[in-house]
């Protein structure tokens, strides 16, 4: 959550309401679990950690004043590191999805390059799971677990195909940085 918020702020300074709208759009029905206060809690924590600063306060014609946050140098470093690091073997779908959204939005990374890196990572895990699965009887306890793990990794890889198609359509490969 912190990393996603930081990434969304790297394009331009923004306020909590805006950030929340962006997350709700990206998450669809899953965003309903994101309660209204969550984003402000996150922003406060990030500010305490020195990763964002309050840049100014906007006073719209109607409604409450809005604190506009911007990234600090430390915040920029942290976002860059997050973009560069692999999602890890247990990353879930929503987590990686938000990373792709944030990458495209911020222009910090090419979503398609992230998809490629993730595919390699998952293929290597699947290679291990599949070799282990072939070496175990499907009816054994260990074999049953390995079957489940291999099927889940396969499902993740199939979803990546869909990601590749969708993000390719948004930002054709070989055309600039792909941050459409």
């Amino acid at each position: 959550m912190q990393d996603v918020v930081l990434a969304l702020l790297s394009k331009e300074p923004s306020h909590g309401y805006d950030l929340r709208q962006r997350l709700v759009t990206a998450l669809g029905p899953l965003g309903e679990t994101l309660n209204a206060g969550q984003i402000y809690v996150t922003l406060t924590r990030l500010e305490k950690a020195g990763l964002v600063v309050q840049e100014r306060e906007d006073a719209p014609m109607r409604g409450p004043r809005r604190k506009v946050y911007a990234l600090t140098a430390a915040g920029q470093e942290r976002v860059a590191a997050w973009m560069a690091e692999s999602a890890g073997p247990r990353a879930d779908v929503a987590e990686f999805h938000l990373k792709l959204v944030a990458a495209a939005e911020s222009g910090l990374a090419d979503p398609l390059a992230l998809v490629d890196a993730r595919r390699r990572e998952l293929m290597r895990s699947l290679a291990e799971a599949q070799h282990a699965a072939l070496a175990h009887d499907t009816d054994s306890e260990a074999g049953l677990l390995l079957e489940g793990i291999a099927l889940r990794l396969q499902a993740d890889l199939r979803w990546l195909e869909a990601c590749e198609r969708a993000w390719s359509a948004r930002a054709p490969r070989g055309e600039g940085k792909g941050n459409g």
Partner: protein
Amino acid sequence: MKRVVPRVTGRSLHSDTDESPGWGPAGHRPAGVAGPALRAVGLTRVYGEDESLVWAVDGVDLDVPAGQTLAVTGPSGCGKSTLLQLLGGLDRPTEGEVWLGGRRIDHLGERALARLRRRSVGFVFQAYHLMHELSAAQNVELPALLAGASPRAARRRAAELLQQVGLAGRARHLPSELSGGQRQRVAVARALANDPLVVLADEPTGNLDSAATRDILRLFDELRAAGQTLVMVTHDERVAATADRVVSMRDGTLADDTRLDGDGRGTRHGHGGGTGLGALLRWED
């Protein structure tokens, strides 16, 4: 999707591997041949004409070292089957070169090419392509006989191969008396009859259930251990995951190239932060 003119520049191949030429386990085959077992240079296959040109394969460069098992994946229509047919001399490229065991094959005459295919390439197809009126053993003997082996030698070789694929007891059965998985094992045995330089398999498990798929994958694993060079086209990630290396095709070009075999046999993990299967577990007290 097959790409239609006008052409756009395809994504260039990028790989996270840093292999030097000739990496990977050296197979015992092909004897005395330097360089890759299979090589494609600028391989291109265009269908249609004028307004409706389709680049099914578009400038593919690929080296398959002897002893490597390679999986080619990608969405349907990406050109992976066409690539396999070009590599095996079943189709001819519009442009580019195919080298098999150090010999250029794309410009050979029909007869020379047919002879080469018979001796040096073993094909496995999704739909088995066995001869219905011949027994399992006769199907396996056929390529050896066509290549000039004596009936006795062909029979002995077929018996040996059927034993290897676990079908010694089914030698006299007709294909119609065998299950899909058994038919495909016969087809694998047939592909090996002439001790080919490469085995090319197009969706070898495409018609099989999960148990029969396991049998075929175990068989491929034995071939790999024996140093057989194998290229398979598959859309099944779990099948691809058993290979030493996976290349992904998109619109006729190679989009990605990933090694799965570690630094050699026996070490299957340890790259790019891979931490083994245990990393998939989340232990909580």
